[in-house]
């Protein structure tokens, strides 16, 4: 068989030839690391509640602490090792968001503190804010018009 017969046959041939990611192992690691990070968050959340903070404030405290830990580990050059092991397990929790802001900030330090660190900080995380905030505005507009959440369920 000639793998180069057409682009399509070549693509199929390459897909067959290329090894797949060890998805079961990756999922297992993602599961327990992601679970663990969020459980740490839950413990902090419970402590805040015991301290008498309301849910909203407690949630914010949890976010800030986890972001701080993630930034600290990134600064110690450790987060990429965790990320390599855990994949989505450390990416999907808020720790991944923090890492995606801290890592370009460190990387582009060599281009200066204003346009390097300041300018490139959001190269990875910028889209998250753009889409997240835009989605929240659309949700707000829909809520404003229909004045209910359940209408959008139908």
């Amino acid at each position, binding site marked *: 068989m000639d793998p180069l017969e057409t682009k399509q046959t070549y693509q199929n041939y390459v897909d067959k030839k290329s090894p797949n990611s060890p998805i079961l192992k990756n999922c297992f690691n993602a599961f327990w690391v*992601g679970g663990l990070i969020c459980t740490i968050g839950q413990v902090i959340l419970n402590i805040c509640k015991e301290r008498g903070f309301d849910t909203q404030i407690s949630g914010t405290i*949890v976010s800030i602490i*986890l972001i701080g830990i993630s930034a600290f580990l990134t600064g110690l050059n450790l987060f990429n090792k965790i990320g390599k092991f855990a994949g989505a397990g450390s990416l999907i929790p808020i720790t991944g968001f923090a890492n995606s802001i801290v890592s370009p900030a460190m990387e582009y330090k060599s281009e200066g503190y204003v346009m390097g660190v300041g300018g490139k900080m959001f190269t990875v995380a910028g889209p998250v804010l753009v889409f997240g905030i835009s989605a929240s505005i659309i949700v707000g507009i829909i809520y*404003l018009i229909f004045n209910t*959440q359940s209408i959008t369920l139908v």
Partner: protein
Amino acid sequence: MDINWANVFEWSSLLKCFVTAGIICIIGQILIDKTKLTPARILVIFVTTGAILGGLGIYKYLVDFAGAGATVPLTGFGYNLAKGAIEEVQKSGLIGVFTGGVKAAAGGIAAAVFFGYLASLISKPKMKKQ
């Protein structure tokens, strides 16, 4: 005020949190391994999904069930943005559309920016040894 540690480490809430978060991360991992999406795109998918599910009033149930297991993943960040927008609309109408989301997420965003800048001041990227 004394902390009741039995409440803090109440195992059923922690277990629900652990399993829910784990499952959300597995979904992310499957996306990474099967679709070749970049990390930025995966984060965008999660935050947008969270905002939409939050807007539809569905994600609330997951948060009630799993606590931090649903709020700490990026879907929770999206949910938080949407929830903030809705609450602010209830309070102050049209202007709340624009202020609510970011207000609710302000702590996280400000912390990430500040800690990011701080880390870049004191630390240097190092080559992955592996």
